[in-house]
């Protein structure tokens, strides 16, 4: 019985994909995540948390939370992910399982605005200082506009699409 079957037996597994020899991607639900992580850590040997990541699928109004674990003995990674509601991005911390989750969650809180209940330091500034806008890694934050407004540029670039300019130059007679 391989790990996918074992996981399917115990938890709700929406998608299970074997990406590489040493990389497995599992999608589960919000409710099933922490038990699954606990199970993977304690019983399957995925003892190391390598990364917590968040992706903004703004079209679906979802945040994808991914937890990458590493099994030292099997030499394999597993990505456990689930979709989080973008409007109410509340979740729980896994700080109790892995200490480094604290910093990762702090960063995600700052960059995406995901709220991790139980994380002691998530409201402290990690990277940004005196941030005055929506969390910057969200897709609807326009960094170019923000930069131009806040920092300006030496000689405003036309930002015209040169391709368009060229074709329109030749296109002139049609516009007449």
């Amino acid at each position, binding site marked *: 019985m391989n790990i996918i079957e074992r996981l399917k037996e115990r938890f709700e597994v929406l998608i299970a994909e074997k*990406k590489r020899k*040493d990389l497995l991607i599992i999608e589960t639900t919000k409710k099933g995540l922490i038990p699954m992580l606990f199970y993977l850590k304690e019983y399957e040997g995925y003892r*190391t948390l*390598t990364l917590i*990541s968040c992706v903004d699928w703004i079209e679906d109004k979802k945040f994808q939370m*991914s937890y*990458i674990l590493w099994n030292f003995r099997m030499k394999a990674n597993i990505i456990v992910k689930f979709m989080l509601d973008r409007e109410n991005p509340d979740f729980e911390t896994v700080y109790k399982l892995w200490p*480094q989750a604290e910093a990762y969650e702090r960063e995600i809180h700052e960059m995406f605005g995901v709220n991790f209940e139980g994380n002691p330091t998530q409201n402290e500034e990690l990277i940004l200082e005196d941030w005055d806008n929506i969390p*910057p890694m969200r*897709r609807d934050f326009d960094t170019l506009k923000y930069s131009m407004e806040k920092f300006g540029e030496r000689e405003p670039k036309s930002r015209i699409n040169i391709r368009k300019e060229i074709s329109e130059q030749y296109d002139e007679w049609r516009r007449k």
Partner: protein
Amino acid sequence: MSTEEVRLFIGPQHPGVTGNMSIEVLLKGDTITWAKTHIGYLHRAFEKLMERRIFIKSFPLVCRICVPESDTNEENLARGLEELADIEIPERAKWIRTLVLELSRLQMFIMWYGGIAGSMGLSTPVQWGIGDRDYILDLFEELTGGRVYHIYILPGGVRKDLPEGFEERVLKTMDLIERRLPEYDELIMDNAVEQKRLKGLAPIPKEWVEEMGITGPVARACGFPYDVRKNSPYEAYDKLDFDVITEDGCDVWSMLLVRRREIDLSIKLIREIVSKMPKGEFLTRLPNVLYWEIPKGETYVKSEATRGEFGYYIFTDGSGKPRRVHVKGPSFIHGITLLERLLVGQNIADVAPILVALQICPPEMER
């Protein structure tokens, strides 16, 4: 002096920190009772910028993520995109990439080797180390056209072939460095003061390694044979003959030993790569890079940087731009989770050696 606690900021403008970062400590006498890492001084929002750029434009960006060791980033992103776009790269490209990666590791280790002495005020090896590293940068300049930022590894292979006679010059530089190494050893390894200060300094509890996700030489100094090059071989590493280096001391001295042996290993590997370098094509033709689109997918690729496991978590959504690239620098864990815990109980004088030993590179923590 009084027994009340003094709050002290080490950095960002401080000669002892390894880059632009800051450590806030509480001192009781000379002993640290609490520490907190402050980062964000170098945050340039790479991940956000990559989301706005087509794939090829990300390559000049990513090599700036870790300033002294840019190739790991390029290689990781290139490999990730190749995996997602299903591109097979030529054999020679793999070997050239491996050569570049090893050279890059070697130059970083040499700089580090001088730096660990420099962190305790011994400036002579610093001067030597950075000076000798420059000879490797000369090789890079010849190969890639850039000293520090190479933008050499692109999806599909590498950008240019090895110049004529490059292999000989690599070997010559290796000889030069090998000749110099005993002189470093005299000054660093065989130094009474150095040994007195580093042996037994800041021991890492072994159970932290797996728990916290400590990687690279730090993990190997704790006896964990964790090396991405061996565990999940990439490029041409599976065809090279080497063993994972481990030490069992868990302290800064063991980390020094691991890295010292890594230098020897790198030199050996570079010699091996040069001798086994296959002939042939070095770049497969990509689709038109201006309009290159990659189907939807996600992957996690990693490689062994000098500091530990460097990972790229890449999402594509079928458009010409990545949906999200999350860069996992080893320093993130080392510099925040591990450092904050490790500094407690240490002497203020040992902050600099510990920082250097963990090899914390601020730009990869905040990207």
